[in-house]
């Protein structure tokens, strides 16, 4: 079947503002949006710019707005989208570099600000630092993040103020705050209680709906808000 793909294009060397361009592509219902973009780039317009890497929903490179909602192009099938034209646009809230490529630097700066690594200066035991299955289960959901930025760039609070750390950074802070082996939870909670921390979240749920890994992001943010308010991780 033939499908119309409407893409928001922007070439910083020639365009003052982004504009839409529509392509007609032969596609199967089981094709992914990434396949359509590859066909356009390969056979119709080689100048089309977008990020992709593993193409299997793990690297998080190809997050973009597809039919008005943040999704991974490699995990979105044509048959799961409404009939007619498929609209593909870059993520909101980040600066546009070219076509579907946005500047991810602010996103990763926020990510780094929450210390997304294990901190434990205690002498290590002879074998590994043991953890019970229950303790591991406590933060299992937030280990699934692939840093695609679909959540952060779906958040109206982030659109209105780019200094907000955003859902992805909070999810990755949650992953270590609730890790029984980590010792820097209090420091992370201090960072997140800042005016651009968790309290910028207005429980809108766009992040949870946009997450391609189905992480309960708003719940993770809620747990951190509660931990800050009560001073307890229980």
């Amino acid at each position, binding site marked *: 079947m033939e499908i119309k793909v409407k893409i928001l294009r*922007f070439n*910083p060397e020639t365009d003052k*503002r*982004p504009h839409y361009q529509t392509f007609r592509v032969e596609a199967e219902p089981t094709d992914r949006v990434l396949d359509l973009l590859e066909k356009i780039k390969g056979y119709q317009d080689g100048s089309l710019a977008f990020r992709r890497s593993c193409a299997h929903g793990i690297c998080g490179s190809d997050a973009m*707005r597809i*039919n*008005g*909602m943040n999704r991974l192009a490699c995990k979105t099938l044509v048959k799961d989208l409404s009939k007619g034209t498929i609209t593909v646009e870059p993520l*909101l*809230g*980040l*600066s*546009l*570099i070219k076509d579907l490529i*946005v*500047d991810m630097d602010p996103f990763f700066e926020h990510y780094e600000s929450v210390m997304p690594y294990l901190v434990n200066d205690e002498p290590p035991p002879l074998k590994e630092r043991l953890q019970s299955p229950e303790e591991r289960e406590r933060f299992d959901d937030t280990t699934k993040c692939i840093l695609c930025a679909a959540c952060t760039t*779906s958040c*109206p609070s982030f*659109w209105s103020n780019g200094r907000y750390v955003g859902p992805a950074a909070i999810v990755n802070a949650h992953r270590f705050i609730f890790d029984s082996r980590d010792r820097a939870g209090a420091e992370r909670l201090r960072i997140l209680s800042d005016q651009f921390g968790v309290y910028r979240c*207005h*429980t*809108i*749920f*766009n992040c*949870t*709906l946009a997450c391609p890994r189905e992480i*309960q992001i*708003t*719940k993770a943010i*809620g*747990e951190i*808000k*509660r931990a800050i308010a009560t001073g307890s991780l229980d």
Partner: protein
Amino acid sequence: MAAKFQTWWQGLRYRGGGTMVAWLLHRIGGLAMVIFVGMHVFASFLTQQFGSGFGTTLNIIYQSPYFQAPLYFFVIFHALNGFRIILLDTFPKLLEYQREVTWLQWMVFIPLYGLVVFFIIAGIVSGE
């Protein structure tokens, strides 16, 4: 060079679903209440201090059913939605059931607002 091309319209077009609509209505409701309270204080001030006809006109506007009906909508929605958010923030475990909680909010809102609309229409019909 990277540049930001972001507009209000692009944000409003984002398909966030029912909870994003609830957030938008919550914000609009907050503004509606500020306008109502502002008008009320301003009209009372003008009427009491100067016996102004303009104050009476403002009173007539905000007491009209066309102003009251949307105002009640926003006030009741704002209150219920605020209660839902407080509940979810206080008990994060409930966030797993946010869809159900949102439906529950509408199930309380619809009969409550329906009652208000009934009384407004009854007032119009009886000419009060």
